[in-house]
């Protein structure tokens, strides 16, 4: 067949090579070192990497759920959370004043205001960026109903290295 349509196959080969060659650029987003790079390498900020974990944060905030990285919410949201710990999503999560101040400072210093939020959501799952990255087109609704996943707050169900500030996804 190659003999009959040499021109066709030559062109097909060239087209295939071009397609393969441009595929990396077609990736809408790329994640490196915790920073999210958009199209054309635009830096969308370091979403979650913290310079150094704070022990109190790790212990207190990680006792009932995974300690959510400060970079996941804007400063004002953290301030609200820390100001109402005794009524923390239906439970009493209060700490001493001293520990509260320390954790609040840590969160504020490592929070992320790069993603513009019009309101200050208390839930990470209500932030614009979360909804965008975990929308229906990216994740089927049945994924949230999987008993292994249970809820949108269960980041570790898919982001299995979250404890190391690494948001690469392990396929379920």
């Amino acid at each position: 067949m190659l003999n009959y349509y040499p021109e066709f196959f030559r062109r097909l080969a060239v087209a295939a090579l071009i397609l393969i060659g441009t595929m990396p650029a077609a990736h809408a987003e790329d994640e490196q070192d915790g920073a999210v790079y958009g199209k054309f390498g635009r830096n969308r900020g370091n979403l979650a990497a913290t310079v150094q974990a704070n022990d109190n944060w790790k212990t207190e905030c990680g006792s009932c759920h995974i300690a959510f990285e400060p970079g996941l919410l804007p400063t004002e949201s953290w301030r609200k959370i820390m100001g109402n710990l005794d009524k923390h999503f239906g439970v009493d999560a209060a700490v001493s004043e001293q520990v509260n101040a320390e954790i609040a400072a840590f969160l504020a210093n490592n929070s992320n205001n790069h993603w513009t939020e019009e309101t200050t959501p208390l839930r990470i799952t209500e932030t614009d960026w979360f909804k965008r990255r975990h929308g229906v087109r990216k994740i089927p609704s049945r994924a949230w109903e999987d008993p292994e996943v249970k809820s949108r707050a269960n980041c570790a169900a898919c982001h299995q290295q979250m404890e190391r500030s690494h948001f690469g996804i392990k396929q379920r």
Partner: protein
Amino acid sequence: MPGFKGFSAARGEVFFKTTHGGEWSCASCHTENPAAQGKHAKTGKLVKPLAPSANAERFSDPGKVEKWFKRNCNDVLGRECTAQEKGDVLTYLLTLR
């Protein structure tokens, strides 16, 4: 304590396993067998065993004990636990094999 008649593991066990006007009991997270691994009723986060027989660290830090009594009694009972209640529960947990 006026009228104090001692602590009772049996009373502590009952207290631990019943609800107190709310949705949760202590067992909701720490399970019916406190020597077993627990699980947070809402988040699913695993909780290390509560009974010292299964987890030697438990009750070694009074500050930590007070902190968790304060939070969890508020969640389960909507108030602080009395000294009697705390004593009963601790007695129960300390005598668990």
